[in-house]
């Protein structure tokens, strides 16, 4: 009976329907091989995947702003006085401090990466040898956090400078987009800073090393993304005037 059943299934649709628990090692990635009990690799993959998916959403947000930026530069309004389409776009001069802030952020990505590698190394070592080296390590995470806060402070200085010159969000379309883009990025980066603070606290507390490694790993992913996003926005503001 079982043979007939199996044969009939094989006959009809060998790839669908039947198949059974596969006795060859299934591909690790998406092959439905998860057994629901997360080991380090599985958990890290899960959280990395989550952050990457989240990044896609943030990208779409900034793609929309970019699209609005480009459209707004190009369109004109019909001016009945002159009988022509007139555009009111006046390119804005990007405050010089932004270059400094960019360098700070770039450097923070370096320190973030150092923090990530150190933490992951320690986790792997501990897993392999069952010990954890308790030696003091350079506070890469702390430095990154300070640099991140420094970036935001630098952006705040830029905004203060502009308002002192009388350039507000509503002054002209160019300034509107400047504020919208930099403030949006700043807010997302602030989220990153909060993640950094959380990661800093986690590394100091007594948590399994694997958890610490995942937290730092995933925070690093987000942080690098914020850096890349800033480079993009900065380039947009400088080049696409």
């Amino acid at each position, binding site marked *: 009976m079982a043979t007939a059943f199996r044969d009939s299934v094989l006959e*009809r649709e060998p790839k669908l329907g039947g198949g059974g628990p596969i006795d060859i090692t299934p591909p690790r990635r998406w092959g439905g091989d998860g057994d629901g009990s997360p080991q380090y690799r599985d958990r890290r993959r899960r959280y990395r995947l989550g952050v990457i998916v989240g990044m896609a959403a943030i990208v779409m947000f900034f793609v929309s702003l970019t699209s609005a930026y480009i459209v707004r530069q190009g369109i004109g*309004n*019909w001016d*009945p*006085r*002159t*009988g022509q389409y007139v555009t009111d776009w006046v390119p804005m001069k990007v405050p010089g401090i932004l270059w400094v802030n960019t360098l700070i952020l770039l450097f923070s990505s370096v320190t973030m990466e150092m923090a990530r590698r150190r933490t992951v190394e320690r986790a792997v070592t501990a897993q392999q040898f069952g010990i954890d080296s308790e030696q003091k390590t350079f506070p890469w995470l702390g430095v990154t956090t300070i640099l991140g806060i420094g970036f935001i402070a630098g952006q705040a200085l830029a905004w203060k400078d502009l308002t002192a010159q009388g350039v507000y969000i509503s002054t002209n379309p160019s300034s509107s987009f400047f504020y919208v883009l930099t403030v949006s990025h700043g807010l997302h980066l602030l989220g990153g800073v909060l993640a950094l603070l959380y990661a800093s606290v986690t590394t100091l507390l007594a948590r399994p090393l694997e958890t610490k490694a995942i937290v730092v790993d995933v925070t690093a992913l987000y942080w690098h993304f914020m850096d890349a996003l800033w480079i993009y926005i900065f380039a947009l503001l400088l080049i696409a005037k």
Partner: protein
Amino acid sequence: MGLVLLVVIWLITLLSTYYFAIDKWAMLPLASAHGPAMDSWFHTTYIVVGIVFLAAQIGLGWVVWRSRDQGDQTKVTYSHGNTKLEVLWTVLTAIIFVGLNLAGARIWAESRFQGAAPGAVKVEVTGLQFAWYFRYPGPDGQFARTKPELADASVGNAVGIDDTDPAAKDDFVVGTLILPVDREAELTLRSQDVIHSLFIPAMRFKQDAVPGLMIKMHFTPTKVGDYEIACAELCGLGHYKMHGMLKVVSQADYEKWVAQKVAEKQASQ
């Protein structure tokens, strides 16, 4: 239950199709040059979609009844599908849908890809909360400058014509659109505040009036008569009463009317 479903589905289908077929609440009789082609294309789409609608719903009712569990030992046909059939109906559907669209594209192209012919009657249409105003350029064929700060319906300058512009001498504004029959009209649509939409069902004409844009559209009325204009883009609490009229008159009556209006305008200066 299968039979009940079949009956209900078939009845609904046949009743709806009946009312579509007899065209009980018909479109307003058309009175523009591009209208017949559009209505004819409507008809074609009707037939194609109608056949699909009937086939699908009658088929659904039939399948549901035929495949009901009759409480006996009939075996179910175990099958995961039929690739040949899938490919066949995918290709057919694609051909019918996309083909229908491409075949009818000419009508869109004719009314939208090209501008009005020279010599068309020019009218500037301004929509505002909640009325339509129609400005005619007069014998000089030029629309005068307008300034938003001058717009004031209470002093009779709803559109804000700048009287310092010499072209303003023969511009006049009315609340009813008057056009000569069998002559192409070029409408330039503007809006003073929010988006409105000029909809003249009998002319098979609709176009949004967007603030910040000057949108030129054209059509040719082919029958003398009075035709209603309705606003077709939500514009505020008075959207439902943003009503206007198009009067199509003979060429002679049109010229008389224009001359009279120009004379009135010049007398009032």
